[in-house]
Structures are given as structure tokens and as C-alpha cells.
């Protein structure tokens, strides 16, 4: 679990995860297009994410595709977010989204 937190403790790596969340299954090249980083830096970040099992790769022919793997996050979720809190958190999150939407409309 320490590897997961270490991997998440970096803005660029979180951006990489965001990219995969938006569109799962991307090549290194595709991921580099979105980020203002060198290819070497992206490769390094991806290796760290992979060692934490947050990103997994699957070969498709010649391409190596990167995927977001939600399993480690699910384990964290199971450990600290109890079943009773879930409802309240969802309600609060919906309220926040609703309020933010109204703000934009003004």
C-alpha cells in the first residue's frame, strides 16, 4: 500500500492517471502528447505507477497499451471508507457538484 501512496504523491503521475481514466488503453506516445514532459520522464512515472499496480500494460500486436487498474484504490477504499459513510459522502459530493454547476450558470 505504501507504493500506492508514493505513486499518488506526485502531480504528474496523477495527471497520467487522469488521462487513462478519460481514455483507457493508451500508448506511451499518446500519453506523452498530453503532458508537458519529456518521454523519459513519462516513462519513469509510468514505471512507478506500474510498480504500484495502479497502471498495467497489455500488449496488442506491436503496441503496448497502458491501463488504469482500479484494484489498489478499491483496497484503500474498502479499508477506510465504511459502508455507512458511503451514502453521506455521495450526497455531499452531489450537493457540491450541484452548487458548482449553479455558480457556473450565473
Amino acid at each position: 500500500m505504501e507504493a500506492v501512496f508514493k505513486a499518488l504523491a506526485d502531480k504528474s503521475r496523477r495527471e497520467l492517471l487522469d488521462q487513462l481514466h478519460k481514455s483507457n488503453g493508451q500508448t506511451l506516445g499518446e500519453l506523452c502528447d498530453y503532458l508537458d514532459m519529456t518521454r523519459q520522464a513519462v516513462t519513469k512515472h509510468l514505471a512507478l505507477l506500474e510498480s504500484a499496480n495502479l497502471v498495467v500494460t497489455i500488449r496488442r500486436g506491436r503496441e503496448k497499451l497502458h491501463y488504469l487498474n482500479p484494484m489498489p484504490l478499491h483496497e484503500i477504499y474498502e479499508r477506510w471508507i465504511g459502508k455507512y459513510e458511503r451514502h453521506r459522502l455521495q450526497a455531499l459530493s452531489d450537493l457540491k457538484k450541484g452548487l458548482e454547476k449553479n455558480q457556473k450558470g450565473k
Partner: protein
Amino acid sequence: MKKKELVYVTFIRTTPKKLWDAITKPEFARKYWGGMGNVSTWKKGAKWEHVDHDEKGLVRLVGKVLECKPPKRLSLSWASVDDLKDVSRVTFEIEPIEDMVRLNVIHDRLKPGSSMAKGVAWGWPRVISSMKTYLETGKGLNVFAGDDESPCEKNN
């Protein structure tokens, strides 16, 4: 529109054979998969059904066995009985690593935003997590714990 693809990778302290049985034998699956099991002859081209293991025995999901290489790879077409036209695909890949097994569950050909896509994004982490707990401790988890808002339930 680009089809959605979900990938789940988890490491389980078990053997490929036991993991294979946990997926393909309903008497094992029901212990961790919310009381449901997968029923088929597991021959390529055969049909398979995801069935409730209570008296009613309701069929929830149906499909065909696209590929079956025990205990390594199982690929299924996958559709809800409520919407047989929305067919996606699930592939289980099992690979031994020392005293563990790496399980890849790949659910692709999903329609973005469909009730199936939402339902399985909610359900897979729970089912896989419960499967791991079952194989390692002999007891599964309650996959529906705390979730009246489960998208799976809503669709019924």
C-alpha cells in the same frame, strides 16, 4: 464512438487451477459472487449463463464461450438478459507468478455510458476483491455491502 475498455489486475495467493474453478464452477462462484454462479459446459462456442443460486435461479447474464484454455484464458461474450443487443466481452487471463497468480480481467467492447458499463465499473472491483478474499481465506465478501445505490440493483 470509441468503445470502453476496463482492465483489472490483481494478485492472488492461489493456484491457476483453483482460480479457474472459482470462475467456472458455480458452487464456488456463489460463495463470493453475490450468490451467483457461471454455468456452462465451457466448450468453445457453448453458451454460458450467470445465474442466481437461490430457488428461483434467475438468469442475469448470457453469452457464448469465445475462447477456453483452462487454466489460462477464458473469453466470453457478455450481455444482460434485459438488453441482449448490447454485447460486450470479458476475458480472464491467469498467469502463475511464484506462489501467486496474476489475474487480469479485461472487459471491453462496452458502450460508453451504458447501464452495463456503469454496472460493471461498480461491480468488478468488488467481485474480484471478494474472489481474492475467498481464495485466500475460504470466505468471500458481501459484494453488495452498503450499496442500495448499486447500479446493478437499479436495473432490476
